[in-house]
């Protein structure tokens, strides 16, 4: 296959002709992402392969606020020459945000199929859960538990034994 010339884009400079992919968020904002970074997302990878990457790719499930951060994440992870330790530290900072934002990251990572981001955010949630009692978990995530009396008794007995 012959190499395609980079699309003319305001962002690409002559000395650094990287192929850019345009993305559009649910609220109409447009973002540009390097192809290498976009390939972190299996969803985008499929679209690029099928050559639908010409026009801005609409992402109706992701808001501009979140898409901006996702682009930042993918770009960082596509950067060459970053050592594992600094990347880990960068990741830790990246998810050092409000609960609700972490939730949005998870949904975006799931929708866009970004394994690295999904793994990172799921780990964050797992950390939020570890060490808590069922009551504390419920309070933290605002979850209503509707158990039958029999289930309640089972749960009570299990947790009494486990936390003994």
């Amino acid at each position: 296959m012959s190499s395609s010339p980079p699309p003319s884009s305001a962002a690409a400079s002559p000395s650094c002709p990287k192929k850019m992919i345009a993305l559009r968020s649910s609220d109409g904002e447009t973002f540009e992402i390097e192809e290498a970074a976009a390939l972190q997302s299996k969803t985008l990878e499929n679209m690029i392969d099928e050559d639908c990457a010409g026009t801005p790719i609409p992402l109706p499930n992701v808001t501009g606020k979140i898409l901006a951060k996702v682009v930042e994440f993918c770009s960082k992870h596509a950067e060459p020459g970053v050592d594992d330790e600094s990347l880990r530290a960068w990741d830790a900072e990246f998810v050092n945000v409000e609960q609700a934002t972490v939730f949005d990251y998870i949904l975006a990572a799931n929708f866009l199929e970004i394994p690295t981001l999904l793994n990172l955010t799921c780990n964050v949630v797992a950390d939020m859960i570890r060490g808590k009692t069922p009551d504390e978990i419920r309070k933290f995530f605002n979850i209503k538990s509707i158990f039958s009396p029999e289930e309640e008794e089972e749960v009570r007995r299990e947790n009494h034994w486990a936390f003994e």
Partner: protein
Amino acid sequence: MPIKSLIHDMRSRSSRAVHDGSAAAAAAAAEEAAARAAAEADCLSRSCWANMPQELLREVLVKIEASEGSWPSRKSVVACAGVCRSWRHLVKEIVKVPEVSGILTFPISVKQPGPRESLLQCFIKRNRSNQTYHLYVGLTNALSDDGKFLLAARKCRRPTCTDYVISLHADDVSKGSCTYVGKLRSNFLGTKFTISDGQPPHPGAKMPKSRSTRLVSSKQVSPRAPAGNYPVAHISYELNVLGSRGPRRMHCTMDAIPASAIEAGGVAPTQTELPLSSVEFFPSLPFFRTKSNRVESVSSGPLGSQKDGALVLRNKAPRWHEQLQCWCLNFHGRVTVASVKNFQLVASPENEPAGPQHEKIILQFGKVGKDLFTMDYRYPISAFQAFAICLSSFDTKIACE
């Protein structure tokens, strides 16, 4: 339309209906609708975590189950199963039985067969002052007394026998409690023992008739129904040919486990739920249809007679060490104090040629301190059965000076 204005709209409509003198029913209906809308608004403004897609929740729970493989941090897995129905369902799906994973997770784990691949290392602490015994699973491979509590037993001496009541609660060890698991009963001489399970070991299990059982009509539900009483094993102790100068002989018939369990492809019955105190038990009604095959007749016949197909365990004979002038068994470092109570149980090839499956140590018990003993067990017996067998070793007077 924003929810808030919808509520306002409905409320004003309902108040107008009252002023118009319309039927109270219409006003009530509008009030109800307003309340529902208000609740909806409340839900929307709540955190979204309750609505996390199942597959993502599963990812998170899989991570937790994988990372918290040992106690005490394993309690996080149990906690997750107590959050709500969907979490519970997922966790129960993800957690594997001890036979496969080698890890104990929920209380029912102590009733399920141990790991196939290796011995699960536990220890027992004896409390002479209140005649109780506590079973723990070790936290590390090191020989220490740091463990996660599993079961407790309390000795109850009676005129003609001794009972060891076994419970999931460290302090509440009584037969009427909802944490009752089963018991060990010895005969008057302390030579024969029966292990009883508080719940059926497998479908079709029958309980023996006893004087203490009452016919309960199907309409009656006692608030704290007595627990069931299903004999699951018989243990006997005998002197060997050397009399009390030699190690005693142990013979365990595991009525609830078929001999085929230790053959290739064999399975042992696995209970999946513990009984609840509200469940009615009908001790003497012939409620369970007898299923064919295996071990449904669990009456206590004369010991030594082979129950059709039941697994028999015998203790490995120690060898006499001429230089040390004592009986020796290789406990692989897990037993450090000589004691007549120490033993290793292997499956006995009762009616068939011996094979490699009869070499595997299924239960090992021995002293490591004044009131501290190790107990290592594996498939096909459970922690409960292993614990009860070890208790019999404490109790029997055979070959004790």
